[in-house]
């Protein structure tokens, strides 16, 4: 770890607001997507040589988005610079860079909005803080809008509900349009288009992996737990982040899902066509991308004839599934195109569609269909990290806040030792892991480490006071980010794991099925 060229933030005695260090993170930006990557997903390959052309395209797209998204339009107009959000972003707290204050991040766009779309900004730019879109400013967009994890913590504290995620998405969409895309996200979207999942795992590789998994579980438990792929007529289609197929600790949760289905005697399947729950369209801000990625799920569900669609442990995937699928691909009620109507006939109306795997498991627990040996988790003192997209942008169960209660209820049902982190750092005001929103890439490691700081502080407290040695989470990005970042803060990377990893440890499989 001596190779880092920056300081890792030091734990604070009191959570005071950092002293501003303007430009502290100006150097941080992701690798730019190649022409090939850009064109594969339908965007311009690279920036035009003539700045004026880029400028005009960017402003035209900005205008188009203002007409398409009420969120963007209202958010550009409504901010009064009150400052309520200024100390709420984990990237600001970790980096001290004032442009990582949500209001200042948004001003990078709002200053351009005022200049080109308002009277005040056209007539008195200096007075209202309006700016011409220059190449330098576009570069600032590229730096700072890729230091936002779209976690929406700021929106909780804004008196007008202004949501930086919406602004970030618009900025990234404009950047993509002019040929200034981010390599990591756009490359992954390309893989989904081409092969069907974020990791580029082809069907045969997936099948191999699942077979290996069955053998491992058999060896461990003596029970034939199945991990089926492309099974026609299965009750449940499980759609999960592809990291679950091979990454640690993600795979432990996948093992857990299989055990739950097995123990409950419910037939299920994965789909090689829809072998990915993640939807990076959310990260590049394009509705069309998001829709195209989401459409695979509907196709797979229709093809396999399933009755229920369940989503595995992934934060932004669950946001897109819960909040957007119905709109984007007709999984849910109210779609009226032929495919949506057919799907609504096919899916079982007694269950929410789609369901989260935690809703699914909790439902079975409440029905008494799962049995646990809670002592099997006694070596663990567990805390729960609310993932941002689950906490602030989705729901589980039939009541507001179910997304906080249900995962905790499951943990308490399968383990004896659970403590929460400090209340100002969990539930709807949870701190992001620092790696979400499309920044889980090596070249952004500084922002990722510094952005994880508030979460690490809260974790440190419960480790010290309660001996916590396991932080459960239900997001593939949280898991990947924490395994990477925890060591920098003096923790073992094995401290993080999934909720269904805990379920997997304690569940009684029985042999009667």
């Amino acid at each position: 770890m001596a190779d880092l060229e920056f300081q890792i933030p030091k734990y604070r005695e009191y959570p005071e607001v950092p002293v501003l260090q303007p430009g502290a993170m100006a150097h941080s930006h992701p690798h730019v997507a190649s022409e090939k990557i850009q064109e594969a997903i339908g965007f311009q390959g690279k920036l035009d040589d003539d700045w004026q052309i880029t400028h005009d395209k960017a402003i035209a797209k900005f205008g188009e988005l203002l007409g398409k998204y009420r969120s963007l339009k209202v958010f550009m107009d409504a901010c009064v610079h009150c400052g309520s959000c200024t100390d709420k972003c984990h990237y600001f707290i970790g980096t001290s860079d004032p442009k990582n204050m949500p209001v200042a991040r948004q001003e990078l766009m709002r200053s351009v909005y005022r200049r080109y779309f308002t009277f005040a900004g056209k007539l008195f730019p200096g007075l209202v803080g309006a700016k011409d879109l220059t190449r330098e400013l576009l570069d600032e967009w590229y730096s700072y809008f890729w230091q936002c994890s779209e976690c929406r913590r700021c929106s909780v504290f804004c008196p007008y509900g202004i949501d930086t995620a919406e602004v970030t998405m618009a900025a990234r969409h404009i950047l993509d349009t002019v040929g200034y895309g981010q390599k990591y996200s756009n490359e992954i979207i390309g893989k989904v288009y081409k092969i069907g999942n974020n990791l580029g795992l082809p069907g045969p590789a997936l099948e191999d992996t699942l077979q290996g998994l069955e053998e491992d579980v058999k060896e461990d438990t003596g029970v034939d737990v199945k991990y089926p792929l492309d099974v026609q007529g299965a009750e449940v289609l499980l759609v999960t982040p592809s990291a679950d197929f091979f990454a640690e600790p993600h795979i432990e949760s996948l093992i857990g899902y299989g055990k739950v289905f097995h123990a409950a005697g419910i037939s299920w399947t994965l789909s090689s066509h829809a072998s990915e729950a993640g939807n990076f369209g959310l990260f590049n801000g394009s509705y069309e991308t998001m829709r195209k990625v989401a459409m695979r799920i509907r196709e797979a569900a229709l093809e396999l004839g399933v009755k229920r669609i369940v989503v595995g442990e992934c934060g932004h995937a669950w946001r897109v599934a819960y909040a957007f699928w119905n709109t984007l691909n007709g999984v849910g009620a109210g779609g009226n195109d032929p495919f949506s109507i057919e799907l609504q006939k096919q899916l079982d109306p007694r269950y929410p569609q789609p369901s989260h795997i935690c809703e699914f498991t909790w439902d079975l627990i409440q029905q008494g269909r799962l049995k646990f040996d809670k002592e099997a988790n006694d070596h663990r003192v567990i805390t729960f990290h609310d993932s941002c997209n689950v906490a602030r942008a989705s729901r589980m169960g039939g009541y507001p806040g179910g997304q906080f209660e249900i995962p905790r209820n499951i943990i308490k049902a399968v383990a004896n030792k659970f403590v929460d982190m400090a209340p100002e750092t969990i539930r709807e005001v949870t701190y992001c892991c620092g790696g979400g929103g499309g920044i889980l890439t090596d070249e952004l490691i500084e922002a990722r480490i510094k952005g994880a700081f508030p979460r690490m502080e809260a974790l440190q407290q419960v480790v010290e006071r309660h001996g916590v040695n396991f932080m459960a989470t239900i997001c593939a990005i949280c898991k990947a980010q924490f395994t990477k970042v925890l060591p920098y803060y003096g923790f073992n990377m094995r401290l993080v794991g999934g909720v269904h990893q805990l379920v997997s440890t304690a569940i009684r499989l029985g042999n009667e099925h």
Partner: protein
Amino acid sequence: MTTFFAILFYLAFAILVVGLAYKIYDFARTPAPLSIPTTPAPTTTAGVAFRLAREVVLFESLFKGNLWIWLFGWMFHMGLFLVLIRHLRYFISDVPAWLVFIQPFGKYAAFMMVAGLAGLWARRFLVERIRYITTPSDHLWLVVLIGIGITGAGMTFVSHVDVVAVKAFFLGLMRFDIQPLPDHPALYIHLILVALLMILFPFSKLLHAPGVFFSPTRNQADTPREKRHLAPWAAQIEKS
């Protein structure tokens, strides 16, 4: 001077009403293509109305965000609200009993309003990160509002103006029958600043007032699995 103020107020009123109506129309016609309430969010329309009411009356999210900003902001807005209600007496010829009753509250609310504004302004100088995000127009609005508050309170508590004549002027304006406005410097400043506020309202950050009602993160019910949120432009994509 009377003619000047008469024209100014006709103009200011027209700009405020037309400008604001256009802005509200513009917000309303712009589609919200996806369901994006900030959760935990209510699942019913009544719940949404209650959430918005809490935001508008109590500044709930700001309360969670920063107690100082909340305190000063709330003092200013509530003070302004009471003062505005009190001013209805200048536009109604037969003042009803309830309006008479609230007059003293409205008078002293001016102090609450100015104190709140002073607190908000102090933050713009004293708190480093608030100073960083402040534009010149942010200062200017505080100057305008404090100016309105001080000149108004000055006429109530220090140097009285002929309020009967002021009322006659405004009632006259409403009937297109211009009556003389009393000659009083504080009154002139007060009215010019109020007219300025009315004229700039639709072009400025004061749009947060209608904006809060149109913010999708606050005004949407959390029902995406039960209800589809297809925007007209998104429906076009469906067809292609």
